[in-house]
């Protein structure tokens, strides 16, 4: 049985130390992804749910 290697394929792990980075990659590159991912992982504001609901309800009418 194969054990996942801990950094498996389930996407970024909250709290993962930012110093985890690929070989030879400068520190800022991980920082850039971390900055980006911190926004990706934020819950969508309510206004977005309203937007999608509106799209759902109204179509493009």
């Amino acid at each position, binding site marked *: 049985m194969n054990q996942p290697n801990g950094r498996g394929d389930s996407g970024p792990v909250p709290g993962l130390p930012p110093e985890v980075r690929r070989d030879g990659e400068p520190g800022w590159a991980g920082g850039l992804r971390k900055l*980006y991912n911190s926004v990706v992982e934020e819950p969508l504001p309510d206004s977005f749910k309203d937007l999608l609901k509106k799209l*759902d309800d109204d179509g493009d009418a």
Partner: protein
Amino acid sequence: MPDRIAPSAADEGFRKELLSVLPHLRAFARGLSGRPDFADDLVQEAAIKAWTARERYQAGTNMRAWTFAILRNHYLSELRRSRRQTDLDEGVVEKMLVMEADQEGPLHLDDMEAALQKLAPERREAVLLVGASGFSYEEAAEIAGCPIGTMKSRVARARADLARMLDGDQPQQVEVKARKTG
């Protein structure tokens, strides 16, 4: 009177895909503009544009690239339209950066964000697309409407700029926060 059209399976599929890329659009827009509220407005407007144009989207192609291009073009036209009113509010940027999670990091997100916002706009866009969003050079060039060589060059310059700003004057493992108090 127009017929009320029941949502088709295609529309429903499109809506789901659009929903799934919204977090990425938010991250891209925030990186581009540095302003969370403005970024969210951009994303919502881009989402509406994408929805309106959904018939032009080919299912099975890259929704993320397609919507990023829409957002990017919308961002540029907004910038042009409101150039005079565009004042970068440092306070807003700073507030955004007092986020959790970076306390333990050797490189702080506020340093990263500040450096990102100092880049020339086309380099910022390039490094966001390739370095943060994970697009290939080819996809990024398509999104930005430029040749691949130009995109590669922009990314390389952005990387050099960031390395100079972020890696140049401090070792990566040093706790920057501790130095700030001294």
